[in-house]
Every structure is written in structure tokens, then in C-alpha cells.
């Protein structure tokens, strides 16, 4: 049942210790900073976080990692010039890393939302990241078996929601939002604007409200 919350603290109040949390965003675009800050404040710990990166500078996901709340990262590109908090935890052996090619990350998240139990993809064949994985020759190519990534919670950022929970995004901030919304048991969305039911053109809805549980207006 869709709920509109007044504060980000209320929006993330039900996130449990030990949860797998998907966090939208590619770099800073689409990263739900306010929800992440609220998650930090909530004290939730022992989290597995799914995000393309592993935090940048001293904000958002980077702080969650710094504070030791993240047990494991599932991501494609942890190492950046400003990923110092992740780097420190990783070198200290205090955080687990599952490194996933970005397309496999996206497709595995999509598979979870779409009810696909696993799929074969050419990406990664013959590389370190496919070591120990099942391979099969299909459609003229060697392919690697990959499995879905499910989550308990998704924290995402959209531009607008209507009263039914339908979402639209803005430019490249769309990125992982729509597929994470479908892959998580509970999807929590921060938006810049809430419009009445009927305020979004049905042709242009990107995430239908069926994938959304909680909405909070931010800023």
C-alpha cells in the first residue's frame, strides 16, 4: 500500500539491520542523498548495498561506508579519485566487495524484478570476473550464467510522483531507479514534486506506481 511520508526519517524507519539495500544513482546523478543521510541517522547496520559505485567524497553512501554500516558492496566501479572511505575499509579488510560488470549489474537487477531466475550473457566471458561460473556456447558465442540480485529495500530519487506513485525522472539521473524499484521488496522514493493523480501523462510514466511503496518530498 502506497504511503506518503512527511520526513525522510519516517520514510526509512522500517529498514532492518542486515538488509540488502539498493541505492540509485550513477556518480551523484540520481543519488538519493537525503534518504541515505536518513538511513545513516537511523542506525541501520550490517547492510549489503547495491550501487554502481562505492561512495564519493564525504557524503551520501561514502559516509554510510565510513561509519561501518556496510558489510558488503555489490558494485561495478568502486575505485574513484574520491572513494577514500571505501578504499580504506577495503584495504583494512572491513568491507566485502562483489565486483560486477555494470551491464551485468543492471541486467541482474532487472532479472530480479522480472522474475527471471538466471540468464546467459557474453559479458565477462574469459575474464577473472567469470571465474568459476557456468559457461555455455549460445547464439554463436561463449556466455556466462548470471543470477538475479534481489533487495529488501530500494532507495531511489525521481523528479515527480503522482498520487498513485507513478514516477518520472530527469535526464541521466534516471539510471538505476526504474530497475531497482522493481527489484526490491520495498521501494522508497525521494521526489522534488508530488502532483495529483492525473498530473502525469500515462504515455510518459517511467516507473508505474505498482513498484513504489513510500514517497517523500525533499527540498
Amino acid at each position, binding site marked *: 500500500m502506497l504511503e506518503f511520508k512527511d520526513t525522510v526519517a519516517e520514510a526509512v524507519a522500517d529498514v532492518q539491520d542486515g538488509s540488502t539495500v539498493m541505492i540509485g544513482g550513477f556518480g551523484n546523478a540520481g543519488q538519493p542523498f537525503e534518504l541515505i543521510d536518513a538511513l545513516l541517522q537511523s542506525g541501520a547496520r550490517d547492510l549489503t548495498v547495491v550501487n554502481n559505485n562505492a561512495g564519493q567524497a564525504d557524503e551520501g553512501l561514502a559516509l554510510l561506508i565510513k561509519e561501518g554500516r556496510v558489510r558488503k558492496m555489490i558494485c561495478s566501479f568502486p575505485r574513484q579519485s574520491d572513494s577514500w572511505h571505501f578504499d580504506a575499509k577495503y584495504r583494512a579488510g572491513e568491507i566485502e566487495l562483489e565486483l560486477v560488470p555494470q551491464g551485468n549489474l543492471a541486467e541482474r537487477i532487472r532479472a530480479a524484478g522480472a522474475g*527471471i531466475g538466471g540468464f546467459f550473457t557474453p559479458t565477462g566471458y574469459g575474464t577473472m570476473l567469470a571465474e568459476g561460473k557456468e559457461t555455455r556456447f549460445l547464439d554463436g558465442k561463449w556466455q556466462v550464467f548470471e543470477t538475479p540480485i534481489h533487495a529488501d529495500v530500494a532507495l531511489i530519487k525521481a523528479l515527480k510522483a503522482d*498520487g498513485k506513485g507513478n514516477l518520472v525522472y530527469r535526464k541521466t539521473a534516471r539510471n538505476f531507479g526504474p530497475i531497482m524499484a522493481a527489484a526490491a521488496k520495498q521501494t522508497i522514493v525521494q521526489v522534488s514534486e508530488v502532483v495529483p*493523480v492525473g498530473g502525469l501523462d*500515462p504515455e510518459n*510514466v517511467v516507473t*508505474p*506506481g*505498482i513498484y513504489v511503496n513510500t514517497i517523500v518530498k525533499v527540498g
Partner: protein
Amino acid sequence: MAETSTSAVPSGTAQKTSDTPLGRDDLARLVARDIAPGSFVNLGIGQPTLVSNYLTEEQNITLHTENGMLGMGPEAKGDEIDPDLINAGKIPVTELPGASYFHHADSFAMMRGGHLDVCVLGAFQVSAKGDLANWHTGAPDAIPAVGGAMDLATGAKDVYVMMTLLSKDGKSKLVPQCTYPVTGVGCVTRVYTDKAVFLITDDGVRVRETFGVTFEELAELMDVPLR
């Protein structure tokens, strides 16, 4: 996907809540009443679509149609008819405020990914284990057609079947084992019939209520052990 065990309730205590068997519309009304507020629902094609006539505004139910829409409204009439806006049965329908359109892979991802709360389907047979047979009579000369039946049967959180309890030749369609080709295995959670509502549970088939027959009279009509 069997319903939560209700073994705390003594078996065989279902009440006769109507003195007569239920007609199609009364049955549709009953199904509609049982759908939780805020649910996302697919009503398949044919008889189950009657359920939409009895959903109330307060329930805030969103209807899905497999051909790419959430927020489907009632059948279109007169000037409302638009050939680009049809339901899974290819009948012209309308769009409600808050609707959304999406392509076929996204629509079936929604169904197959377990996002629909309830789907209501017709059936030739349902087994005591919740197997569903509703796509093929098995007749050797029949041209088979499956549509979205297998996706709905497998994907929805709850699969409700609406059917008459007895076939034209007087045999129960809730059976120990399906003899028709199945659509899905162990997928049905409830069976709404003119004579009773059945819950398919881990402990077997439980009768929730009966219509025009007593529990004992009902049990006489069927080869399936009832609780």
C-alpha cells in the same frame, strides 16, 4: 503459494452463507469484496472481468491488462471506443486518471516478477494441490492457444479461480488431479464457485463458505477431501 495454514480452525465448520447457489454476478461481487484495498489486480479474460463491476472507489484497486497498461477503466461505450485502447480480451476499454502504458516485455515482467497482488482466472479444472488447467481441453483436433494464462498463473501473488463447481456433465471441476493439460503447478490459492469458496492450503482444501448446500452435501459432490 498456498494460503497460510488455517489449521487452528476446526475442519468441516464452513457456514452456508446463502440458501441458493450464487449466480455469476453475485460471485463476482464476492470476489471483489475479498480483494484487499490498494491491490494491483489482473482479471484475465471472460467471466473474471465481471469482478471489475463490483470494485468500489474506496478499495482503490488498480487494474492491469497484459497488453501494456495499469489503471484500466470500464469497457468503452459509443464515442469512448478507441482502437488503440483495448484489454487482453481485445475489448475496447477506458483509461482512468493515474494510468500508465508500457511495452509487452515490461508488462509481462510486472506479471512474472510477482508484482500483481491478485489475478482472477477461469478454469476447466483445479487440483487439490492448486494446479490449474484453463488453456487447453486436450482434444486432439483443438488448435492450442495459451496467451498470458501461464504467466498470470505463475506470476501473481494470489491466483483466484472463478468457475462453476460442476461441469456440464455434473462432475466436480475441483479434482484430485487435473486430467486436462495444466497451465501452472500449485499456483491457485482460492477457488470461487457457485456452490462454495475453497481455500487451497498446505493442509489441503478448506471450505470457507457454502452456497445452497451444506458442507456435507458439498463433500458428497466431490472426490477431493475437504476440511
